[in-house]
């Protein structure tokens, strides 16, 4: 994710979920396309049962490099547009679903999480 967003998001999630383990954070700061792809690939290649790359937005360098690094590595999917509700849902469900099913669940959660509370008359 951009700047310190990933680590900040995990810190925020920990205040609700509790301590988080087995989740790596990575910033795109200072990375070229090649070096970011390598950093992601270095992590993904250890995932025997596949897994998810959670990134901030579609079309960003983390998405593009993540998709490139995940190529040919089995069930590794990129989920973009991740927000705090999505991250919390991931933490609660990551052991219950295989990666592809979990990714679809997170997509639905992300869409559901964006709502507008309209002002009401006094």
């Amino acid at each position: 994710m951009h700047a310190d967003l990933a680590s900040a998001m995990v810190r925020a999630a920990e205040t609700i979920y509790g301590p988080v383990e087995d989740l790596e954070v990575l910033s795109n700061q200072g990375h070229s396309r090649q070096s970011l792809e390598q950093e992601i690939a270095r992590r993904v290649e250890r995932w025997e049962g596949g897994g998810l790359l959670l990134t901030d937005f579609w079309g960003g360098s983390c998405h593009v490099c993540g998709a490139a690094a995940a190529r040919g590595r089995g069930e590794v999917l990129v989920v973009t547009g991740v927000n705090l509700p999505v991250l919390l849902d991931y933490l609660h469900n990551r052991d219950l679903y295989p990666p592809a099913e979990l990714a679809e669940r997170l997509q639905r959660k992300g869409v559901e999480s964006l709502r507008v509370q309209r002002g009401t008359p006094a």
Partner: protein
Amino acid sequence: MSWALVRVDDRLVHGQVLLAWGGRLHPRRIVVADDAAAGSDWERDLLVSGAPGVAVQVVTVAEAAERFSAEASAEGAAFLLLRDLGAALELVRRGAVPARLNLGGLHYAAGKEKVSDYVYLDASDRQAVRELRAAGVSLEVQDVPSSRAVALAELGVEEAR
């Protein structure tokens, strides 16, 4: 208005281009001039899908040079993205000479020296800079439109001889 941004950025299509420059200049088309990406169906599809709502074309540098002047008079704004200074120099050598070249992201790699937080150059990059300047191209370092464009010469990169 056509070429609204001609940019050297090793990340090609990414957030600063789509959201910051795209939000300011509203390109109708993004031309990615990159031989490696143009030669890979998979890479081409990835770059095209990365920018929903904008027509992305991934072509070789030679093809971009051929289209350069026709695109310059086309309707609507367009962006041209190049991966490195070598590609920019090839474009110019093929007769497509942008007045201004935006340096938006040339990140650290072994052998490259820091010029700014997001521009690192090696000897062959500096040679390309000299040749680009000699061809009349003005080189500016600027990551996003809200930051100030700084002439590369102001950052201690030697002048053309």
